[in-house]
C-alpha cells in the first residue's frame, strides 16, 4: 500500500545544518524538508555545496552542527534505521566496488537486508536490470562502461524501495532510452510515496521533472518553491536561477 497521503508528510527534515568543507566554505542550512511523494530538484552554481549537502543527507559526511532526520530517525551516520530508508544514486562513477561483479555487488547489498526481504530484493533486482536493459551482470563493475556503472548505481539504490531517494545528476552517462526508463522509475517511486531529491545542473530538466525546486547558493538554500509557482513568477526556472544566483546576468 502506498504511504502517500493527502497532506504529504516530511520524510526528511534538516534543521540548523552546518557542514564545514574547508576553511573558506561552510554549508549552513537553517531548515529544509523533503515531502513524501514529491520530487524536489536541487540546483545551484558550481561549488555552491550541492554534493556536500547530498553527502550530509546520506550520512557520508558528519555535520559539525544541526540535525538531519530521515523518517523520524536521526541521520548521524551510525543509526542503522536512518540508513535503511535512504537510497543514493551518485554522480561519481567510481562509487562502486570495482573488484566485484555486478551480481556480487547486488548480492552484497541484498545480504544486508533482513532475511525475509531477500527474495523480494532479488526479484526486484532482476526486474530493474531488465527494465534498464542491464545485461553485464557477470562483469566486474570496475570494467563496466560509464553508463553501465550508472545503471548499477540506480539498481542498487532502487532495489530497497527507499523512503528517501537522493539522486545526483540522474541522466549523466545514460542513453536517451535509458534516461526515459530511469526517470519513470524515479517517478514511480515518488508516486509510491518516496521523497526524492534530485541534484542537477540541467534547469530545463529540473523544471520538467520535479514538483518543486530548491536553489542552493553560497552554502544556503535561497529558494524552495513549487515549480509551477516559479514558472508563474519568473517565466522559467532559468530566469529565476540567473536572478538569484547571478544577479540577472542574462540581462
Amino acid at each position, binding site marked *: 500500500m502506498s504511504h502517500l497521503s493527502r497532506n504529504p508528510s516530511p520524510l526528511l527534515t534538516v534543521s540548523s545544518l552546518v*557542514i*564545514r*568543507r*574547508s*576553511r573558506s566554505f561552510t554549508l549552513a542550512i537553517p531548515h529544509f524538508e523533503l515531502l513524501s511523494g514529491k520530487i524536489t530538484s536541487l540546483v545551484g552554481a558550481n561549488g555552491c555545496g550541492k554534493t556536500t549537502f547530498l553527502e550530509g543527507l*546520506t*550520512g*557520508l*559526511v*558528519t555535520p559539525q552542527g544541526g540535525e538531519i532526520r530521515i523518517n523520524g530517525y536521526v541521520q548521524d*551516520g*551510525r543509526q*542503522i*534505521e536512518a*540508513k*535503511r530508508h*535512504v537510497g*543514493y544514486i551518485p554522480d561519481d562513477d*567510481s*562509487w*562502486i*566496488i*570495482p*573488484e*566485484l561483479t555486478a551480481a*556480487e555487488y547486488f*548480492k*552484497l*547489498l541484498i*545480504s*544486508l*537486508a533482513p532475511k525475509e526481504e531477500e527474495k523480494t530484493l532479488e526479484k526486484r533486482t532482476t526486474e530493474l536490470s531488465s527494465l534498464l536493459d542491464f545485461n553485464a551482470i557477470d562483469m*566486474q563493475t570496475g*570494467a563496466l562502461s560509464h553508463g553501465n556503472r550508472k545503471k548499477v548505481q540506480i539498481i542498487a539504490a532502487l532495489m530497497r524501495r527507499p523512503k528517501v531517494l537522493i539522486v545526483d545528476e540522474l541522466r549523466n552517462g545514460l542513453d536517451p532510452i535509458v534516461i526515459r526508463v530511469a526517470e519513470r522509475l524515479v517517478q514511480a517511486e515518488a508516486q509510491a510515496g518516496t521523497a526524492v531529491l534530485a541534484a542537477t545542473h540541467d534547469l530545463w530538466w529540473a523544471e520538467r521533472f520535479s514538483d518543486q525546486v530548491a536553489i542552493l547558493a553560497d552554502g544556503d538554500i535561497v529558494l524552495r518553491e513549487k515549480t509551477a509557482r516559479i514558472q508563474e513568477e519568473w517565466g522559467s526556472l532559468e530566469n529565476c536561477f540567473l536572478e538569484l544566483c547571478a544577479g540577472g546576468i542574462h540581462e
Partner: protein
Amino acid sequence: MSSQLTSTSLITSLGSGSAQPIRKLTISLVVLTLGALTISSLLSRQIWESNLGISAPLIWILAVILVTSFFISSSVLSLVRISGISKGSDNLGRHLAILPVPPLTSWAIRLLPSFVLTMVIAIFCLPLSLAFAHAVTTSYLLSASFCLYGCFAGLCFVLWPIHHTLLRMTKPLILVGGTAIGVRLLSGELTFWHHISRETAPYLLISLLILPILGLIPSYLEKPGNYLPTSPSLILISLPKTTLQAFWYVLKILRNRSSLTDVSFLLIAALFLASTAERQSAIAGLEIIWITISMSAAGGLAGELRSLVPRHKAAEVFSLAGPFFLIRSQLRGSLVATSITCLPFILVLLHSGGWTPAHVIAIYLMSQLAACSLGIAVGSLVAPPPRDVGGQLLSVSFSATACYLLAKGAFYFSIPVMQLAILATSIPLTLLASHYIESLRIRSYGHI
C-alpha cells in the same frame, strides 16, 4: 557479520587491481604467509642453535619479546598504509558509511584486512619468540602469549586515527623513538632517570604497551568514509606549487601523505639502527652488512613508489613523455628519498674508518643507484594500484629481497672493482627491464 561483507573487505584490500581478485587475494596471502614462515624459520634455527648466554629474569625476557613483536608489527603495518584502510577512505568505506550496517560490524569489516596482515606478522614473529624462549630456557607459552599480544598492540597503535599530517608523521617518531628508549632501558644504558632501574624497566615497558590498545576506541568511534578534511596540512600548504620538471616526482612523493610517512619512518629507523651500531662499535668489519641493509631499505622504498601512479593508463605516461620519462622520474624521486633515509648509514660507515672514504662513497653510491633501479623494476612488475595493500606489501618485500640477493651476488667477490662492476651492470639491465614492462603494459591494455 555477513560473509559477503567479509570477503568483500578482504578482496578490496588484498585482491584489488586484478580481474580475478579472489585468486590474487589467495596468492597474496599464501605468498606472504609462506615468505614469513620461511624467513622466520631460517632466523629461528640460528637463534635455536645459538647459545645466547643471556641470564636474565623472566620478566626481562618477556619485555624484550613484547617490545620486539610490537615494533615489527607496527612498523610493517605502518609501512603498508594500513592506516588508510582503517580510515575507510576506500570504496568499501564509503559504502559502509551509507549502507545499513551496524556500527560494530562496520568497524570489524574495516579492521579485518589489518587483522589478517597482523596474523601474517604473528606467523613471522611466533617462531622467533619460541626460538628465543628455547635459547634462554624460559616458558614457551608465556613467550608466545607476549609475542601475540605485542603484534596485536602494534595493530592497535597503527589504528589510532590521526588526520593531521604533522601528527601522522610523529607516529613513526613515537614508534622508533619509543622502541629505542625501551631497548636502552632494558639494556640498562639509561642511567639519567634514577627511578628506573634495569629491574623495574620491564614492568614499565609492559605497562606502557597496554596503552596502544586504547587505539581501538577512537578507531571504533571514527565514522567510515568521512573524508572531509578535518585539519589542513601545514606541510602540504608550505610545499612549493611549482618545481623543475626533473623533480616533479619528488614533489609527488612529498604531496602524498603515505609516502611522506614512509620516508620519515625509514629515516627514523635508520637513525636508530645507525646510532645503536655506532655506540656498540658494530660497524667496522661489518660494512657489507650495513651496505646490504641500506640497499634493501632503498629497494623497498623504490619498489613502493610505483603505487603513486595508476597501474594502467597513467597520465604520467600518456600525457607526458612516455614510459621512460616515468622511469627516469621515479629513479630521481627514489634517489632523493633514499639518499635522505639512508644518510645515517653512510655517515656511520665514513666515521667507522673501516674502509677508505673513497671506497665507502663509491660502493655506497653505486649500491643505492642499483637498489633504486632494481626496486623500480620490481615496482613496475607488480605495479600496485594506490591503496592496494597486498600489492604494496608484495612489491616492497620482493624489491627488498631482490636487493638483498643483488648485494649477496655483488659482495660475493672481495675485490671492490668487481663489486662495483656487478652493481653497475645491473643498473642499465633493470632500467631496461622496467621500460620493457611498462611498454608491454601500455600495449596490452584492454586486451585479455
